[in-house]
Every structure is written in structure tokens, then in C-alpha cells.
């Protein structure tokens, strides 16, 4: 949000006053979790919002675009763009300056390559974020993964715990089990949608899920645990990558369970070994 650029002194004072009044008003609002305890959204609301979150947002945007731009202007803009591109191409090819400029460019590119031979690895498709509007992405397993918005996610919370406790059992239909345990004094709500993220060089990147299923908030009673099956065939995964984590939405919090396939597999194999030796 932009800060005040062309305000008079009086208006600047009004801005300060409005800020202070809003601060004062909001200071009386209880925390999200407390409000969540006193109010549960109606099914009608949940359905409407889920619709908006999943599909209607795009639909809504399309409506907006239609409202603001008539197809005639769109065609006109497209024609102008094509004309500009063609013009630029023709100019570059026919211009005598082009050859000199192009040669210089090639030379400088070659020099840069020589000076920095260890630049980004092959798989990286995008540069790290340089401005507020850019998204940091990487190429992973033939898909684009986006830098997770929250990098620091706690692995433990005082009222809930999560654990990945099953190895990849079947390569044809691999799956993991995520155990969610409610160790707090109140029942908890968790979302039956889990974000699978992979660590690539400098951060956690969210792997897109191919599953198109409705997300639901589920309740877990105090002292109870539940095993949630995560079907990995819904994701495109490189099983050799080192570190993964599953993000679980619990109430207003996020909790992460980190794992590697080798590690989980080795743990289970050890356990199986112990059991068979015990027998």
C-alpha cells in the first residue's frame, strides 16, 4: 500500500488520527483463536467461500476483465503488440547498428560466462526474487515449484504433534502416513489438505498437488491421534531429493513434519529388523 504522497498538512494529521483510532478499535478484538472458539462458520458460508477459493476467484477475475475490457480493445491491443514486435524484429535485422551491437553483446556474454563458470544449475528456471512483485520459482521434476510463503514453520506446537511414520511402500502407488496427535486440552480443527514442500538449495518450495478434492476441516478430540494417508502419486516427486516436509494446517497455526525418503525407509527397516529379531 502506497504511503501518502500529495496530502496537505491537515490531511496528514487526519491520516495519523485515523491510524490511531483504528489501532484503538482493533486493540479490543480478541485473538483469532478465541473468536474461532466462540463462532463456527455456517455450512452455507464455508461452501460459498470454498467455491470462491477454488473456482470462483478465476471466474470472478474473468468477469472483471470482461467488465473492464471490451473484446474490441483486446483485439486492438493485440494488433498493436504484434505490430510493435514485428517492427522491432525488422529494425534489428535491417539496422546496420545491429551487427555491431550484437557482436558486442555476444562478446560480453562470453566474458561473463568465463568470469563466472559456476552460475545457476541447469534445473533452475528463474532468478531469486529481486522485487516485491516477483515470485521465486524453481524447476523441479519437470514442473515449476513456488517458494513457500512461510519458510519458518515450527515442527512442534504445545498442543499438537505431527509425524511421518511410514516409508514408501509401493513404487507404483507410493503413499505416506502422517500421524497427527492432539496433545492439548481442547479439541483441534485440522485441514485435510497438506502441503508437500521440498528443500531446494535456498528454501522450501511447494510441490503442486494434482488432486482435485474438496478441502475440509476435521476435528480431532483431545488425547487422540489420527493417521492421514498422503497419496504421493498426486505429486511429481524426485525420490532422490534430500529433504521434504509436510505442512499441516491446524486451526490458525501451521506445523511441519520434515522427512526424507531414505531416512523414513531406513527407520522402518530398522524397526522391522528389531521386531523379527525379537520374535
Amino acid at each position: 500500500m502506497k504511503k501518502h504522497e500529495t496530502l496537505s498538512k491537515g490531511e496528514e494529521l487526519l491520516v495519523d488520527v485515523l491510524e490511531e483510532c483504528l489501532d484503538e478499535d482493533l486493540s479490543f478484538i480478541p485473538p483469532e483463536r478465541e473468536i474461532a472458539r466462540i463462532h463456527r462458520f455456517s455450512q452455507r458460508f464455508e461452501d460459498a467461500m470454498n467455491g470462491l477459493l477454488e473456482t470462483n476467484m478465476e471466474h470472478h477475475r474473468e468477469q472483471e476483465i470482461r467488465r473492464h475490457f471490451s473484446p474490441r480493445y483486446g483485439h486492438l491491443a493485440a494488433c498493436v503488440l504484434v505490430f510493435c514486435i514485428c517492427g522491432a524484429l525488422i529494425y534489428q535485422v535491417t539496422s546496420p547498428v545491429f551487427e555491431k551491437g550484437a557482436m558486442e553483446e555476444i562478446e560480453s556474454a562470453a566474458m561473463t560466462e568465463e568470469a563466472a563458470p559456476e552460475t545457476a544449475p541447469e534445473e533452475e528456471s528463474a532468478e531469486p526474487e529481486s522485487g516485491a512483485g516477483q515470485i521465486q520459482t524453481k524447476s523441479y521434476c519437470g514442473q515449476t515449484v513456488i517458494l513457500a510463503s512461510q519458510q519458518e514453520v515450527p515442527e512442534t506446537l504445545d498442543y499438537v504433534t505431527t509425524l511421518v511414520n511410514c516409508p514408501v511402500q509401493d513404487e507404483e502407488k507410493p503413499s505416506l502416513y502422517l500421524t497427527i496427535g492432539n496433545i492439548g486440552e481442547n479439541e483441534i480443527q485440522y485441514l485435510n489438505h497438506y502441503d508437500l514442500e521440498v528443500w531446494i538449495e535456498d528454501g522450501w518450495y511447494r510441490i503442486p498437488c494434482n488432486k482435485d478434492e474438496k478441502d475440509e476441516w476435521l476435528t480431532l478430540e483431545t488425547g487422540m491421534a489420527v493417521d492421514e494417508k498422503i497419496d504421493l502419486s498426486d505429486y511429481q516427486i524426485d525420490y532422490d531429493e534430500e529433504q521434504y516436509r509436510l505442512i499441516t494446517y491446524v486451526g490458525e497455526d501451521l506445523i511441519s513434519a520434515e522427512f526424507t525418503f531414505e531416512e523414513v525407509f531406513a527407520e522402518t527397516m530398522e524397526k522391522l529388523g528389531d521386531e523379527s529379531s525379537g520374535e
Partner: protein
Amino acid sequence: MFLFLALIDSPAEQEKFVEIYHQYRHFMWYLANQKLQDEHLAEDAVQEAFLALTRHLDKVEDVHSPRTKKFLATIVRSKAVDILRKLKPGEELSEYLSEDQNGVDILEQYLKKENYNYLISCILELDDQYRVIFEYKYLYQMSDAQIADILGISAKNVNVRYYRARKKLQEMIRKESDRFEEA
């Protein structure tokens, strides 16, 4: 063309929207319920607010910042005001009848540091339908067209409300200072 491209959905924006929804929906409901005193109408206000937000996500830079929280508070309060106005159509009509050009706008004269405390108490007492206009205009630097889009009214009516809000505030500060002088 650039505007057209800017309107196209991006995964980052969707992610931002989902994050805002999960983080602030209860907070927004609470504010709406304070105003409407009706759980279901408050849910409607929240829903309307999120719909409006899809068109103004660019105003949200950091989901977790206090500024975002305030912006959402303004949107949901304005939606609650909208619902209240629809419940009382008579009041709505009077609002739209004329531009109410009587009287002189001398608010600027009252906006002085000496009046800071009056201003605070006046803004706290000012009706939300006027206060949100000030917030959109001054805190979030939104144009009349943008405010009109959020409120679902014409830009001309935004202007009418804005001038009414200025006059109302001016009147309140004057009364407040008179009361202080009398005391």
C-alpha cells in the same frame, strides 16, 4: 495491455488470498458481528468483503502486517455498513437523493495539531459509513473509482459521501471544541 495482464490471476495471488482467508476470517467476522449484531449477516459481510478483496489484492503487500489487518477491517466494516443500509432503505434513499452542497467545507481549518484530541474523539464517534470513506481515501490512498468498486456504488456517490463525511467531521469538531470551551 499491462493492466490487462495485471488482472490475470497468478498462483501467488491465489496463495495470498487463501492465506488471508485462513488468517483473518474470524477477525473479520467479529468486526462485522460487532456492527450487525447478527451472526449470519456478519458472515455475509465477510463473504462480500472477500469478494471485494479479490479485486484489490494488490493493496496487500505483506499478509501478516498490521496494515493488512487494518485494510481488511476497513473493508469488512464498509460491507457491514452496506448491509445495514440495505436493511434500512429509507436512509439509503436520503443518502443518494442529492449531493447536499449546502454549507461550506472548512474542515481543513480544523485539522490542526491543537485539535488532535478532539479529532480522535470525533473520529471514534463518527458513523462508520463516513469513517470508512476517510480510511479508504487517506490510509490506503484509493481513488474514487477504486472505492466505488469496493463499495458497489458509483464514483460520484463516493464523492458525495466523502464531502458529507468532511462536513460531518467538521461539525463534530466544532461542537466538541465549543463543549470544551463551555466547560
